[in-house]
């Protein structure tokens, strides 16, 4: 478990993750969720600066009852742009944050994944519960000693 304390987010995050434009339609976002099994996708501008996160909850949120229609219209809603429903000012983390501290944060806010940004808000990665679970296992698994390269005959 001590080794886990040495890990930082950048060691285990998904680097340069798939992201979506704020002008994309919700239909495209839904397809992303469908094909990649993401829980959320970062929303970025042309410079890959983070503008928000679009999660499955945000998508569902677009279908909640409101004052405008009696029944939500699927096709109309799917034509809305991502920026209209995304989570603005999402919780962000820095690549050098110790993984032990990220773990506290994920549990605390019950997030499934968080965008990793550098100074200037540039998106550099995404970190998920699964990444942390994997890192926990990796940090605590006794690895076999690698065979010495120079031990070959």
């Amino acid at each position, binding site marked *: 478990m*001590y*080794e886990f*304390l*040495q890990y930082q987010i950048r060691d285990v995050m998904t680097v340069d993750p798939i992201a979506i434009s704020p002008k994309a339609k919700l239909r495209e976002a839904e397809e992303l969720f469908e094909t990649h099994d993401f829980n959320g996708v970062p929303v970025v501008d042309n410079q890959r600066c983070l503008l928000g996160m679009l999660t499955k909850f945000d998508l569902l949120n677009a279908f909640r009852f409101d004052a405008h229609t009696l029944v939500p219209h699927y096709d109309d809603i799917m034509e809305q742009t991502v920026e209209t429903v995304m989570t603005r000012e999402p919780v962000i983390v820095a690549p*050098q*944050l*110790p*993984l*032990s*501290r990220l773990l*506290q*944060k994920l549990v*605390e806010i019950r997030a499934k994944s968080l965008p990793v940004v550098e100074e200037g808000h540039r998106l550099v990665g995404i970190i998920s519960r699964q990444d942390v679970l994997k890192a926990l296992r990796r940090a605590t698994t006794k690895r076999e000693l690698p065979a010495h390269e120079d031990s070959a005959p």
Partner: protein
Amino acid sequence: MTTLLYTHAACQEHDTGFGHPECAARLTAILNALGTVPFAALEWRDPPEATREQLTRIHSQSHVERVLGRIPKQKHYAIDGDTVVSPRSGEAALRAAGAVCAAVDAVLRQEADNAFCAIRPPGHHAEPAQAMGFCLFNNAAIGAAHARAVYDLERVAVIDFDVHHGNGTQAAFEQDHGYLYVSTHQAYIYPGTGRREERGVGNIVNVPLLAESGSADLRHAWHQDIEPALRRFQPKLILISAGFDAHYLDPLAELNFNEDDYEWLTREILAVAADCCEGRVVSVLEGGYNLSALAASVAVHVKALMEAPRAAQRALVKEILERRKAKRNENDS
């Protein structure tokens, strides 16, 4: 007059086992930083081992024997899940406590204005009869007791900015008006003590901070609670339990202090010391587990100690001002 640095090779030989965060590399990182040119004026000293008399001012005789009796001839022995000892741990612990006593001696005999003890194992979790939380003997408390016993100091303060609460120091002091213990720490983490309501005989000031607290919260705590308590108490000596694990990159907790905060806090403490006790400060290393953050934070802390207004200089300035004033009065009359 100068700043002293107490450290000993045995402290680097206290082996806590593979990968343990409280590791010898912590001291290596610190000493590498303090070995650079800006720290050339530091006077390095080897500490003696603490005597039984010094240890038992805080700890029970049986605690001392139990700890030293558990040091294995080889490999490791785990006192608890966190606290591991190995063959050289006994000497390391004795040198660590001895360093603080020697630093107290040097500062009270005016050989130096202040001192930093780069030692391990750390001490502030060690209770009078219980080793725990990486700690065997309570170095800072032992130094404080030494100052009171040998130099008849009426009041000694310990300020503890390690991210964990110093349950051991609190336990040692909470019945004794001669000590003030002031601590900032993250609430609800190890060791679980340090709630605001824990006030001893009015001589314990706990300022728990919520996770993700940072620079502004530290300043608020200082102005609201810590500085007023220190000035009310008027200590004759200030010891610092200097843990650097409230740093934003530390893996063992979730506060967000940075190097500037540690420098600022050190200067604030020195200003109080200048007013109350001729600048007498002995700082004692506790935690801090990100090696580069630890080295950088200790560096600004020690730099601030070195730049403390020198007691001799202050006395001189005071004398000159008084002479001028006397002269002016003479001329006026």
